[in-house]
């Protein structure tokens, strides 16, 4: 398998429809995580980070709805193979399509025609096939968990993509022993039971750093301390050997010393198992400690994306800057902390403007009318200075201030397709070529 992502999210939209309003909790979020890497998803409460994680696993409750226009692509090859075998009609061969984002993939002639009924329902995409005898083995591809039927999502959940929640106490069942809960999971997903299940469960508890695991298996969650409960919850998440771990504020309720233990543990487990981790948090300190790349969310949108080194060394989006400045201890010894005026809005209107504009110290009139797209803000010269690990040097921000080098008018045009059409030729033609088209879809590469 190539270095592609194991999980990629493209234009994910989740809306909650109520009588009063429609809340666009997640509004066009895109990101990708390669195996063995950690993506930090940061934002304040109400920015939509938890809903993003729940949408990935199909755990959004009524009245929430994940919009079919977005996609959650899971790339685990064995899973794609299994699902493709089971739902042959749902397979879309990338060669059939011309507009697939990865259409450069090798065109492999397939015996299967495009006879399958509705292309809408073809949720498995295969981009690369290796011919091995008569049966061609699927090399790369993805399963779109937004389009896939419930049964497929449920197979992915736990076994391929697992989740660790903020409140460990409530993700464990108080009336069953910890051992029973792990054994039950092993029975469902891995078909292991009896003495073998007990042994595996003990090994799992040991792997998350719980000493004397056999005895602990017979204890109830309330007999565990907060840190141990979170360890047990992580053991539960790992029970089915997932490829991707979604961590939703797993250390938020914990003390710093326990938090440090859990972060160490997650790093160790990630190394051992080559896990891809999506780590959701509001704590910039935790992100800087654990993440390789960061996506900053604001009011349902990702406003900036960068490697962790770049984001902290050279934040571009005014919101990211404000957020970093308001952390006590970073702003030096100043008596007053810099603050961001106002509060996070509820994203209940379609995004036709910049949602941060009302609070932004650098807002201009266009911010009210143009919805900013992601543009490349990485200056190649400071890539080295920021100590970038190779391969994560993408840095984009959704803000009308960028691309910085362009004159005002062309800059705005880079974000606004309408304006570009109406523009008077002189400025429109040149500035658009590499601007939005290339940088906009920063997802899988």
């Amino acid at each position, binding site marked *: 398998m190539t270095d592609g992502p194991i999980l990629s999210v493209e234009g994910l939209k989740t809306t909650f429809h109520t009588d009063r309003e429609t809340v666009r909790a997640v509004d066009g979020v895109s990101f990708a995580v390669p195996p063995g890497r950690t993506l930090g998803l940061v934002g304040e409460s109400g920015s939509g980070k938890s809903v993003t994680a729940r949408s990935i696993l199909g755990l959004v409750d009524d009245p929430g709805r994940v919009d079919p226009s977005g996609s959650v692509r899971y790339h685990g090859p064995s899973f794609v193979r299994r699902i493709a075998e089971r739902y042959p009609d749902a397979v879309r061969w990338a060669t059939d399509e011309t507009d697939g984002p990865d259409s450069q993939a090798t065109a492999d002639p397939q015996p299967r025609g495009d006879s399958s009924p509705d292309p809408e329902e073809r949720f498995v995409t295969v981009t690369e096939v290796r011919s091995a005898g008569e049966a061609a083995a699927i090399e790369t591809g993805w399963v779109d968990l937004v389009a896939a039927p419930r049964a497929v999502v449920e197979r992915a959940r736990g076994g391929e993509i697992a989740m660790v929640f903020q409140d460990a106490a409530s993700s464990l069942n108080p009336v069953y022993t910890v051992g029973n809960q792990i054994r039950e999971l092993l029975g469902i997903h891995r078909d292991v039971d009896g003495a073998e299940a007990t042994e595996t469960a003990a090994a799992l508890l040991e792997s998350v750093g719980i000493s004397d695991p056999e*005895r602990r298996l017979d204890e109830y969650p309330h007999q565990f301390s*907060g840190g141990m409960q979170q360890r047990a919850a992580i053991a539960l998440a790992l029970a089915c050997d997932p490829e991707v771990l979604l961590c939703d504020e797993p250390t938020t309720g914990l003390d*710093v*010393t326990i938090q440090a233990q859990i972060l160490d543990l997650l790093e160790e487990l990630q190394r051992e198992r080559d896990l891809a981790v999506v780590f959701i948090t509001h704590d910039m*300190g935790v992100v*800087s400690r654990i993440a390789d790349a960061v996506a900053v969310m604001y009011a349902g949108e990702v406003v900036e994306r960068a490697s962790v080194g770049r984001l902290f060394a050279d934040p571009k989006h005014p919101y990211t800057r404000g*957020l970093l400045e*308001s952390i006590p201890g970073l702003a030096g010894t100043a008596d007053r*902390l810099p603050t*961001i005026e106002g509060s996070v809005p509820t994203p209940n209107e379609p995004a036709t403007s910049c949602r941060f504009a009302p609070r932004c110290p650098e807002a201009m009139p266009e911010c009210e009318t143009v919805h900013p797209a992601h543009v490349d803000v990485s200056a190649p010269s400071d890539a080295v200075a920021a100590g970038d690990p190779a391969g994560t040097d993408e840095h984009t921000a959704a803000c009308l201030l960028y691309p910085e080098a362009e004159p005002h008018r062309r800059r705005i045009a880079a974000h606004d397709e309408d304006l570009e059409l109406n523009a008077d030729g002189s400025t429109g033609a040149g500035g658009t070529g590499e601007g939005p088209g290339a940088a906009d879809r920063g997802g899988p590469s």
Partner: protein
Amino acid sequence: MSDSERSGADRDPLVSVEGLRTYYASERLIGGKPVKAVDGVSFEIGRGETVGIVGESGCGKTTLGRSVLRLEDVDAGRVYFDGRDVTELGRRELKSWRQDAQMVYQNPNTAVNERMTVGQIVREPLDVHGWGTDSDRRDRVAELLETVGLEAEHYHRYPHQFSGGQRQRIGIARALAPEPEFIVLDEPVSALDVSVQAKILNLLTDLQEELNLTYMLIAHDLSVVRHVCDRVGVMYLGKLMELGPTEELFRSPSNPYTRALLSAIPHADPTVSQDRITLRGSPPSPRDPPTGCGFSTRCPFKIRPTEHDAVDEEGWTRIEEFRAVLRDRARNADGFVDGLKRRLGVDDRATPIREVRDDLFGDVSLPEAARERIDRAVATAAEEGVTEATELLDDAFGSVCETEVPDDHPTAAGRLSRCHRHRDEYEEPDEYRTDTR
């Protein structure tokens, strides 16, 4: 704050706490031990000063704050406010004193009565203390709301119409209402997002300057404490482990626990390389604290008996882990049900101690003397019981850290640290481990 200023504050403290103890009685009918939530804490807060109390959850910091305000029944010790012993106050005096000493609570969502309007909430203390006339109170509330950054028009609104940050402002306005001199801030920003947190911290700083307030800030977020406090006390298991001026304490912590705590804070700057001390386990239960120093079960700086000098670092880690397992088992064996099971011989669920030993020590080499002690403990556990085996291990591998409660040692001007390593006969913490500076 400079040294001269600080000692000035020391001469005339507003609040002076001496040997404060707050115990909660056990809920068990027989054989229960009290929870020593606050166990002999002494410190002073100067006028206009902000003293922070930090520590992990369960260390007793909130109880300390409540005890200082006499919201808890104190078992021993004194709290002097402006020279007056408030632990002696009768009901009537206490009520009138509470106008001077107020509290802001952690969770702005639960600290206010949802059925009262904002005006009623802020006004309640004024009503209770019979402050002025009706219209005076009304004006005062309007003024207070503006002071904390809300609007006078918010008087008739209900708390649910406000965000978390605004609710905390309501809580602050309420605390300010009777014009106190001293406010205990119990985790005032921990439920808030950073950008909101910054605003509340700024507000508190402004109010302190304007109204000449004295704060005791209870927090687990060390960066908040560093930003706001003049002096900090670090609490562990009901005791103050270290006390000193904020910047000095953060820059060069004396006490091993302070070091561990500080090194665990993740810096919001990936270029800062941290030497982290990761502590094992979680704090012991205050119902059953370790003998000697409370931190001894997790301390990476623990004094080791000289006869086992030959044991290497990894060996010690395993020995401590082994001791922790046995200690844990011994504690459970005390329980009624477990005791019964053991007596009936049905306690076969746990791994035999022998196997625990083999797991832990299988891949490390221990000197003969140490190995012999461990083997003897394993044999004792099988023959006599886990409690006896634990005692044997305490005897073999324990040290002064586990037998004596450390004293407060002055480590610099205005600084105290509670650790045996400050005694002359032992290496100072920073001599012992130089890798964590």
